[in-house]
């Protein structure tokens, strides 16, 4: 397989992984002010993602680094072009990152409220902008003949791209709530289930609307045929519809599988619609960046492919193990603090 195409696919896989994993973290964050009825339950919600959020965010760091290495021109144009949007993302991500560690450092209710909202606002804002940002790659932004962004901040906001952002917010909230139904117990779990029911319908409608529109945008603005973008779009709509059915049938596990699939297929639809371009130019279509024009030379891609072949499975393996270690529901008997097993001398 052509290494340029392999890396285009890998970038899509990395964004999918990031959305799938951090998606439920963001969803849990967005629901923080609404689901818990007291501080103890808020603590439990934090604890469902506490051990894993940092590992999940790594997928963004890898996606960013891989884009830099494999598609330097794409990285340069996208990051400098989406300047203020990315500045906002950094703000949202930073306040969210520190909220995890800092919130528990004081008992003061005011302090805890501030950092809870930092997490919620950070989760909501970052989700919204990632949705808007990725939609813009396909919808097109002004790019001049030297490959630089030539528009303004407001060019990023069109009906289609804003719907992309809103869809991601709703989908992540839905994804996060199905995650909570699997990770909590008792009243909190009941309320999470209630939230999945309320979110399922709006999220399904938004995903169906956005993915259909995406196929139209791919045809209109990126010179694509209806096939193949319609394939991931149809599968994505099917996944979110099944998620809705599973939620109504109270099959939490399957509902989570479907929200995860819908998230991945949202990303897959964007990337399938993009190919062979990586950023569409709305001013002059010929200025669009393509997989071929934006990519690194063969040698770099070959080195990176070897590295990815070794480390990607390894990361999946130990992150999978982490989820296994923290599989117990939060708030159940199993996770009540037990004394640390005293070490036996010389056992190391």
């Amino acid at each position, binding site marked *: 397989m052509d290494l340029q195409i392999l890396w285009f696919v890998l970038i899509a896989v990395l964004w999918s992984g990031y959305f799938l994993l951090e998606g439920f973290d963001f969803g849990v964050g967005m629901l923080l002010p609404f689901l818990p009825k007291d501080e103890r339950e*808020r603590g439990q919600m934090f604890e469902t993602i506490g051990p894993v959020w*940092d590992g999940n965010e790594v997928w963004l760091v890898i996606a960013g680094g891989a884009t*830099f*290495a*494999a598609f330097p021109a794409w990285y340069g*144009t996208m990051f400098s072009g989406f300047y203020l949007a990315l*500045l906002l993302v950094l703000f949202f991500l930073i306040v969210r990152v520190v909220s995890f560690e800092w919130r528990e450092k004081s008992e003061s209710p005011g302090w805890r409220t501030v950092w809870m909202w930092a997490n919620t606002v950070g989760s909501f804002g970052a989700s919204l902008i990632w949705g808007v940002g990725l939609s813009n790659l396909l919808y097109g932004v002004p790019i001049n003949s*030297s490959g*630089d962004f030539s528009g303004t901040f407001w060019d990023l906001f069109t009906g289609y791209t804003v719907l992309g952002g809103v869809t991601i917010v709703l989908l992540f909230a839905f994804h996060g709530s199905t995650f909570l139904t699997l990770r909590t117990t008792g009243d909190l779990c009941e309320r999470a289930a209630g939230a999945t029911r309320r979110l399922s319908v709006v999220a399904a409608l938004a995903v169906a609307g956005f993915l259909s529109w995406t196929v139209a945008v791919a045809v209109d603005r990126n010179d694509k045929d209806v096939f193949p973008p319609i394939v991931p779009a149809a599968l994505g709509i099917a996944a979110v519809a099944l998620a809705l059915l599973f939620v109504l049938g109270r099959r939490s596990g399957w509902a989570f599988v479907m929200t995860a699939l819908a998230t991945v297929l949202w990303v897959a639809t964007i990337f399938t619609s993009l190919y062979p371009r990586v950023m569409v130019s709305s001013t002059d279509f010929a200025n669009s960046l393509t997989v071929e024009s934006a990519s690194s030379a063969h040698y770099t891609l070959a*080195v990176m492919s070897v590295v990815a072949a070794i480390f990607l499975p390894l990361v999946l393996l130990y992150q999978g193990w982490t989820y296994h270690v923290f599989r117990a529901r939060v708030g159940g008997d199993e996770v009540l603090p037990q004394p640390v097993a005293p070490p036996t001398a010389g056992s190391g």
Partner: protein
Amino acid sequence: VTVASTVVDLARAQFATTSIYHFLFVPLTLGLGPLVAIMQTIWHRTGNDAWLRLTRFFGTLLLINVAIGVATGLVQEFEFGMNWSVYSRFVGNVFGAPLAVEGLAAFALESTFLGLWIFGWNRLSPRLHLATIWIVVVGSWLSAYFILVANSWMQHPVGYKIVDGEAQLTSVWALLSNNFALRAYLHTILAGLIFGSIVVLGVCCWHFLRGHEVDLFRNAAKLALIVAVPVTALQLVVGNRFGEAVTSAQSMKIAASEAQWNTCEPCPFSLFQIGGFSKDDETPSLSITIPRLLSYMATGSFDGQVQGLNQLQAQEQSKFGPGNYMPNVMVIYWSMRVMAFAGVLMFLIAALGAWLYWKKKLEQARWFQWTALVAIALPFIAATAGWILTEMGRQPWIVQGLLKTSEANSPSVSTIWLGISLGFFITLYVVLGVVDFVLMRRYARPDRLAPQEELPAPAVTY
């Protein structure tokens, strides 16, 4: 010209602000991590609960520090593309690779296993839980390696060819074994260990000053001294050897760091000087020098020749065309001295502390305890000065000899956007810094240690 230079200046100010800030937290993670891991290992081996208490006490400081390091690290990765898109396109083939590998092979390891360590106290067997903190350390040390491979390529480009105006990788082995990178890495890891041991020593001395848990903190002070004495001594040697690598790759940086206007052989080392920092004023009005020492430091021989700024400027002009190829001499001269003097001072403090400990006077010597407490600032000052020397000493180049900083910024990013983002980062970082300082102080304070009976519930409860 003025608008263009304003844009570049603002982008540089922003990169300097965010990376210096980021690097206040990174080396503490590099050094405090292994110390906490050693404490937990000792607890694991001996079953002595004092070491568990120390593990948890210093572990909390580590986590407060890591949070802000992770948060500000993200900014660094985005900033290349945001502010330096021409640079990014030029170097991506080469420079992007170690950054991507860092995420995949190192940062993923560090982040995932940190979560396991924080939340795994009751869920993993003690031995497995101990392994997680060591894996965090390995991850953070690997991470530093790949970042320094990337940075060193900007100082001393190797393993590449220029094709159609962009650098392309020709040998990944040359990139990874770049002599400059290996020395920079050793220098940075030692700096990290100095951070960790000097901070632990200072915190212990704070507790001695208050007469709080003296027996407990004596253990930690001993550990800190065992690390601090050899690493501060070794750093003086390694820093010197690193200087040799800089001499061969970046003669201009060395000449500027000595304010050496004309080629000399042998060359004295200037300890201190007044004046002598500009073309109009090449001779200092007052200077204190050590004969032949610069020759030794820059070349490894007491008779070695060190090229002067004027000669190098002429060489660069004939090679690259008209222009100013000198960095800011005064800034480079003093950043070098601040770093080196702080390094020597830390070695003296560590040696003195070890002597007092050996004489069993450490807990009584209040003057030393105050000194060690204040000395917590020294590694931060030294590291900041070191990066100013490294990065400003490379100017006017962003990639030594290949691309100038003034031509590497993002053409699509306006002065207004840069102004907004610089103001934004300064505001956000000041707020984060204040909160971080307050939290660190609070959790390092002598009255903060959990009483003995509260110990066996280490699960983090939100």
